[in-house]
């Protein structure tokens, strides 16, 4: 059974239909990349899987780990192991990263029937996970994302992913706003977190990221549907030729 199986997914934001019948299967241990022009539904797909209430699903199903997750609240999906790395991480003044992460880790542990982590144990875990994204500053003292640079925000996303150890991570344009060094650090963080029993969906515009995080499959999401799936070389072709040939192919069908 696939870790994630999406069938004929239709979703709206307000009156506008964004997803028009998406099908996608992701197995454990795989990395999938979703590419496609702006405004064609990539972030919507990520948001629908994570459970953002601003989208309405009208048709289709999303089966994760054998469970239909569309009726699950956002936080339950997270506790089930789904993680969304935000394209635009939200600034939350007054909430320290420490309190935020400790609350998140312990609520997820509670969901799984585990005892909460004590303060010392938690702080040790934080120090360990900070290394994965080479967080050297006292980033953890600060309010969540407040006043962070673009690079710090994205590093903080991967740091949270490291803390929560998700089974399915969806990274929504994690490479946007990153300089070369930050890109390498973020990608290396994601690679360190790969295990045979988890999977990653990487949404990106650029082949560059895929030099670091090598996908098993590349999907093209166009006008609300996945219109083409191929090996990693497909991303290279997009880099060179853009999306016109895809449009052309679809028009011919």
């Amino acid at each position, binding site marked *: 059974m696939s870790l994630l199986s999406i069938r004929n997914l239709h979703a709206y934001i307000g009156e506008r239909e964004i997803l028009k019948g998406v099908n996608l299967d992701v197995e454990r241990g795989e990395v999938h990349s979703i590419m496609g022009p702006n405004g064609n539904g990539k972030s919507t797909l990520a948001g629908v899987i*994570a*459970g*953002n*209430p*601003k989208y309405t699903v009208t048709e289709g199903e999303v089966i994760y780990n054998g469970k239909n997750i569309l009726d699950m*609240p*956002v*936080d339950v999906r*997270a*506790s089930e192991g789904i*993680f*969304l790395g*935000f394209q635009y*991480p*939200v600034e*939350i*003044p*007054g*909430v*320290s*990263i*420490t*309190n*935020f*992460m*400790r*609350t*998140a880790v*312990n*609520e*997820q542990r509670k*969901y799984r029937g585990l005892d*909460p982590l004590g*303060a010392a144990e*938690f*702080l040790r875990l934080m120090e360990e996970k900070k290394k994965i994204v080479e967080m050297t500053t*006292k980033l*953890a*003292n600060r*309010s*969540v994302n407040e006043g962070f640079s673009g690079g710090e925000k994205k590093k903080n996303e991967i740091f*949270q992913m490291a803390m*929560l150890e998700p089974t399915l991570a969806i990274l929504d344009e994690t490479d946007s706003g990153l300089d070369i060094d930050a890109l390498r650090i973020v990608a290396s963080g994601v690679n360190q977190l790969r295990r045979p029993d988890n999977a990653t969906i990487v949404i990106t515009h650029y082949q560059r990221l895929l030099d670091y995080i090598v996908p098993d499959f590349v999907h093209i999401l166009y006008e609300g549907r996945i219109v083409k799936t191929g090996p990693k070389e497909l991303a290279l072709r997009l880099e060179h030729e853009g999306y016109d040939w895809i449009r052309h192919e679809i028009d011919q069908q």
Partner: protein
Amino acid sequence: MDELIQQFGQLRQQLKKNEVWRNVDFGTVLTDSMRLPHADEGGKYSFHCRVPNIDSYCVITENGYCHQSLMETSEGIVYGSLRAAKEQRADLVALVMGRGSGSDNPYRRMNDAGYSDGVFIYVPQGCHPAKPLQLLSLHTAEASLFMQCRNAIYLGDGSDVTIIHCDDSTNQHTGMSNNVTEMVMGSNAVADYYKLQNINDNSGLLNHTYVTLAAGAHLLSVGITLNGGTIRNHSEVSMMGEGCDVEADGLYINDHIQQVDNYIYVDHLHPSCHSRALYKGILDDAAHATFNGHVMVREGAAKTEAYQTNRNILLTDKATVATKPFLEIYNDDVKCSHGSSIGQIDDDAMFYLRSRGISEKSARTLLLYAFCDEVVGRIRLEPLRQRLSDLIKQRLHGELVVCAECALACNSHCGCSDSEFTIDPTLL
């Protein structure tokens, strides 16, 4: 009903068109069975503040009367009942009473004419007391009472004092308090003044605070309204010399049909003074809040810096806020700003927190708590700040109630369920 109480209820009619007072209506608080307190009701309440690590010079006013004789510490601090102070140390009382500034109003005049008792505090020149001073006004009598307290505080030149002032109900009887606190600060005096209010839903509190600062004095005032039927905080601060600094912040958390009305008037009369007022509020159910801020910058007050902000979160469609920040400036060489906002919990922030596995309830509490933290974080007395953080978490969880103790001391509902927020990030 006593004639005096009736008269108080009718003041609303006189002031209906007065911009400063028109929002307040205490008529609804008054009941037929309400009476004036007797001097011998109370005095049995023994108290020591159980906030961990706070040891204070404490004066209690119980049902409008203070039963503590006048004390004098080795540092020369004189504190105790105002009645006693007027008899024994009229010279010291005269330093405050009648010397305070602030505008006249009919409620204040009623207190002038008929206060029962209150607290007197005298801190001599240059004194830095080792302990905070604590004023505690309690309604403990098993009766509906109309109370008028008068507190007078004198802080000598160069003194540096922390004052904790609590208003609490210890039962569900209706109470109406019309309390006046006057504080006179000498030159370069420093006061951290913390005001905490936790009275029951049936009670009203009209809390006048008039502070006068001499040159170079510094006032930090943090007022926190945790609960109360109808509360009006009427504060007037006058900076009577150069180089004064006033930081006056407030936080109110109200639900049911509670009403809270904060008025603050800051008067800049001399050059190079700085003032800041930040008031924040969370309104649930059908609660109603009013904010009226008024910064007056007089002609001679060059190089003034004055800032005023009011921010509100409404949790329901029925909760309401009326906010009016206001600047009145008669000098060109100033930096001033004012602003207010009314909003809801941010959906994006909620989704972000919940997407990490945090339940809706916890995410909401975390965001509301973060909203409060900006004000609570101003408290410089660490054990008090910690205790208030806990009380606010309990309040946001709907677990804080009025009981037989004051809110700071009470431990009966401290099995706070959100132990998730216990790490102090500053220790990392």
